[in-house]
């Protein structure tokens, strides 16, 4: 099954598009390139399909006027999404016992997060969702911006 077809079925399962729209999208995928598929579906479905997966996670820090000088310190980091994918895949190899311990340790620190929920099968969806991520912290002395691109 192709990636686009899988994505259409996932959107249908999540209720983002109707069965009729899904059928039109699949038909358009089979007969024409992606650009024409986008025009016959709902705007949301077309947008999701047309949008390429993000390639990088970017972290920008602007610490203006810190360290006793007028000049700002700027940090610009670009991490490939492939690194995140590889990390998740590596995490999938962690033995169950170790994951349970990590979960327990995080719960003890107040983070109710289950490492078992991150699986290589969900990877593409996780990366695609990161596309909508944008964290901006704006304080007096520093600005931090994290986003996918």
């Amino acid at each position, binding site marked *: 099954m192709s990636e686009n077809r899988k994505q259409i079925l996932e959107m249908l399962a999540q209720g983002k598009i109707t069965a009729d729209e899904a059928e039109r999208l699949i038909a358009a995928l089979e007969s024409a390139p992606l650009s024409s598929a986008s025009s016959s579906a709902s705007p949301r479905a077309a947008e999701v399909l047309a949008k390429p997966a993000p*390639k*990088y996670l970017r972290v920008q820090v602007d610490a203006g006027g810190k*360290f006793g*000088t007028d*000049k700002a*310190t*700027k*940090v*610009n*980091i*670009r*991490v*490939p999404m*492939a*690194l995140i*994918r*590889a*990390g998740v*895949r*590596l995490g*999938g*190899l962690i*033995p169950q016992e170790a994951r349970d311990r990590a979960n327990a340790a995080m719960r003890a620190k107040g983070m109710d997060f289950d490492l078992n929920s991150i699986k290589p099968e969900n990877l593409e969806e996780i990366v695609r969702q990161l596309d909508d991520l944008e964290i901006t912290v704006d304080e007096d002395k520093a600005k931090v911006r994290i986003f996918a691109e």
Partner: protein
Amino acid sequence: MILPLVAVIRIRTLEGRHIALWVPLFLIWLLLLPFAVVLTPIFVIVCLAVGVDPFQAIAAFWRIFAAFCGTHVEVDSPNATVFVHVY
């Protein structure tokens, strides 16, 4: 997926000195290869002991190293500017 081959490091100091380094990572991989060959049996034994497929583990580590291609770090401070890019 291939491993990163070159890293470019550029440093500009407060005095205005520019240092540009092209680090040939492929040479580092070649230097590490004999160690990897020697350590592979130990790695496989450890993987089997903890119940992890050694081939999957090696593939996962390979992907991690390969995924460093395109990493970019830039720090611009009053004292120095550092630029690192992995190709």
